[in-house]
């Protein structure tokens, strides 16, 4: 339809700002998001941590990995902003470099969980009946288990705790949660006549699910993704804290906390600053998630 490039309305047709209006709706949504101060704050903090993760060398004043380069266990001062740890490493540098792991695993896990959950939600919401009943009970079962317990169980069973195992674990645990939201959206979508019309022209189920229904339930999927991302960061930190995923000496917030929390009195700075870093990231992601939810669900 490239022949209709020029949008001059045909004589007698309606004044046609309709097209531009839909487009402005989308840009309006973005504008509204960026105009919200809390969202802006969140975005800036997240971008900062991403930058640190990508170029740790550019921001960290000292080498974050090698031991015994600096005086050990110095409290924060103007040379070492966050102090140094018992191994003689600059805590500030280690905090700046410590976002890499979490920023890799958490989004990957959330993405996996969202994709899986969306598929499960589409299938259960579309077919209903026995498929839905069986899957929903399984989902209930997974949801009733505490995340950490399930994770430990899986890791023990697999006998491996690499990064990607953590991604898969969190993804699998999140999928049922996402599937519930998507299922609810799909249920109300299948009531609409366009689904009936597709069936009446002989469309196959997978076409109806993925080409007809999916585009209409993307809003809740996007919202769910951002909300889950906040939880995922927390989950990754928790798992790393109990020793899965990253191993020392790689700088990682949760690993640092794990290493030094027993020394919190008097070496509070070794634990506090990585903890604040995790908090800043979780809070920022949640601020953005809240903004997105508000704009999408308006």
């Amino acid at each position, binding site marked *: *339809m490239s*022949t*209709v490039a020029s*949008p001059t*309305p*045909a004589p*007698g*047709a*309606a*004044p*046609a*700002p*309709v*097209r531009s*209006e*839909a487009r402005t709706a989308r840009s309006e949504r973005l504008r509204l998001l960026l105009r919200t101060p809390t969202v802006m704050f969140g975005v800036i903090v997240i971008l900062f941590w991403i930058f640190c993760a990508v170029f740790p060398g550019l921001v960290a004043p000292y080498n974050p990995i090698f031991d015994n380069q600096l005086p050990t266990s110095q409290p924060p001062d103007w040379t070492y902003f966050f102090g140094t740890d018992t191994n003689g490493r600059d805590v500030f540098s280690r905090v700046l470099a410590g976002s890499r792991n979490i920023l890799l695993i958490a989004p990957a896990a959330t993405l996996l969980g969202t994709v899986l959950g969306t598929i499960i939600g589409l299938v259960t919401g579309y077919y209903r009946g026995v498929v839905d009943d069986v899957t929903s009970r399984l989902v209930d079962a997974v949801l009733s288990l505490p995340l950490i317990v399930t994770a430990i169980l899986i890791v023990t069973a697999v006998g491996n705790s690499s990064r990607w195992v953590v991604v898969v674990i969190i993804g699998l645990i999140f999928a049922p949660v996402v599937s519930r939201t998507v299922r609810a959206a799909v249920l109300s979508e299948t009531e*609409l*006549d*366009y689904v*009936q*019309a597709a*069936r*009446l*022209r*002989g*469309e196959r189920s997978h076409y109806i699910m993925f080409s*007809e229904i999916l*585009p*209409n339930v993307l809003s809740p999927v996007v919202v769910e993704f951002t909300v889950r991302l906040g939880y995922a960061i927390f989950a990754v930190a928790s798992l790393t804290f109990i020793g899965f995923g990253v191993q020392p000496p790689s700088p990682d917030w949760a690993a640092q906390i794990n290493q030094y929390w027993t020394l919190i009195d008097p070496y509070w700075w070794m634990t506090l600053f990585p903890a604040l870093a995790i908090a800043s990231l979780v809070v920022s992601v949640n601020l953005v998630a809240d903004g997105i939810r508000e704009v999408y669900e308006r």
Partner: protein
Amino acid sequence: MSAVATTTALDVSDLELVYRVRGIDRPVLRGVSFSIEQGQSYGLVGESGCGKSTAALGIVRYLPRNGRVSAGRISVAGRDVLGFGARELREYHARSVSMVYQNPGSALNPGMKVGAQVAEAFTVLGVGNKEAAERARDALGRVQIADPDSVVGRYPHQLSGGMQQRVVIAMALAKDPALLILDEPTTGLDATVEAEVLDLVANLQAELNTAVLFISHNLGVISKMCDRVGVLYGGRLVEEGPVETVLQNPRHPYTVGLLRCIPRGGVRKDAGRLDTIPGFLPQLGASIAGCVFADRCALVDDRCRTEGPEMTEETPGHGARCFHQDRARDLPRQEALEIDIAPIDRSATPVVRFEDLGKVFKQQGADIHALVGVSAAIWPGETLGLVGESGSGKTTLARTLLGIVGATSGAVELDGRELAPRFQKRSQNDLRALQMVFQNPDSALNRRHSVSRILMRALSKLAGVHGAEAERRTAELAERVRLSERTLTQKTVQLSGGLKQRVAIARAFAGDPKLVVCDEPTSALDVSVQAAILNLLVELQAERGVSYLFISHDLGVVRYISDRIAVLYLGRVMELGPADVVFNGPHHPYTEALLSAVPTIDGGGRERIRLAGDIPSAANPPSGCVFHTRCPRRLGTICDETEPPLVQVEENHLMRCHIPLDELRTMQAAGPPAATAAAAS
């Protein structure tokens, strides 16, 4: 308020109302003036987006946050409404004005018993709890709720739509308001229920001497209910006057056009196309220098575009805003009249035949008999209209034909071949032969897909064409339903209701169907758009010999488009015959009652036959003739005990009634049954 001979209950003068959208004030009402005397009723009509509901919200001062009255005056019972402070406003809402909305289900609190809700209307007036409860019961009795003592203990969802609306009306009248505003109060209700609610409102109004502002898009309802009427277009009152003169002798081209769009007075498709109003409503808040209707008016000249006409009265009390009032009646037709419809060949094999079709739904252990022994046939090029109240089985019949639900007994035949009961088991050819146009185009079209994607997909599945050929056929299809090429690239949310319905029709016709089920295809549309869609359906039928199964509650529309009509009641065909025969009678007593319930624009018409009570439950249908519990012409025990068969009473005319046709003829010629007969059951 002591009664003076006549006092003005509502006076609106030069009302200008704006909505602020993205920082700009957009005018929605442009200098609207009218007034209602106490005890009178005033109708406000117009198509969607003309500002009628905004006017009502302005009068009760319930405007949304971005709405504001920018000029003009509103006074109710002599008091300036716009000058009210917060306390006076609360007092005003509590005592002087009441509003009844379209959807009674959402106007009632679902978690509160009916009695308590009605009592609340009294407690805000300062009545004690105990007395309020008593008065609530009386109020429910006053709106003719049969058993108020049991209704007070029920929740709103346990009541039918008609009952819910009565409860809302009871609450609205609790304060004996100076002004009662009814905003499309019967739009969601069945014809028989609508008629009862309208009767009720008319009686109560006479009794209480309240002023009523009646907002509706239905000119028939306005004609029945109102003394005066104002026609709104683009936020401007274009014509105003006594109901009879405005509807019989309109002086504004818009009113003339609107009246021509409506199929009425027994007009049928072979008499020609319906006239339409071309073009679209002015954009909300557009700035208009001249007449608001200039862009769509056939009488337009240069003066109309630059200068806004004043309201001028040719006869006292009847005014119009038009420079060419004298020529409005002779407004040139916008549509060619002639249409060539081939006669139906009933010796051919019917496209579709229902053979003793039955459908039973299981619901909480009970059997719901949605269809019972339905037999009918539809021939090529024919339209079979289906009418009946909600719950009569119209939709189930259509869904059984399409295979969305499988029949419990009997069969559906296509071209003389028995079809698989469910669509999943039908061949692609059978699917292509039977398509559907849905009631609500918003729901029927995927809002994330472009128009061309929707049509291309339908072509590839139903016509088996792909690639460049599919693109060519898409353009062809769009042209046939008069969609401009520009709309093809748009998403459906960007289109108006009428354009959306055209897309839906084009989709149904992608594979050259033999029969298209139309389930209330125009009920979500404005009358001028409805006329265009009906014309399109008739044209497509004339061109391609397609058949329609046409469901509608609008009897004028059904009569216009149908060759034959089937009247359903509790899943049974009560009457089946040529459209004119079914309408002109002698007809089944149920058909008679149904027809008498519909208010007509021309006024007068039939005397209303009141049906007692609601439709019985299909889970537990009455013995004998299922209609005997409500039938005003019940003969006696034979009706209670023996179900009459559906028999041919004259050529092509089938009926399910114990009363012989000739007797019905004399009975119905003598007028409606005595009111006592109806009241007895």
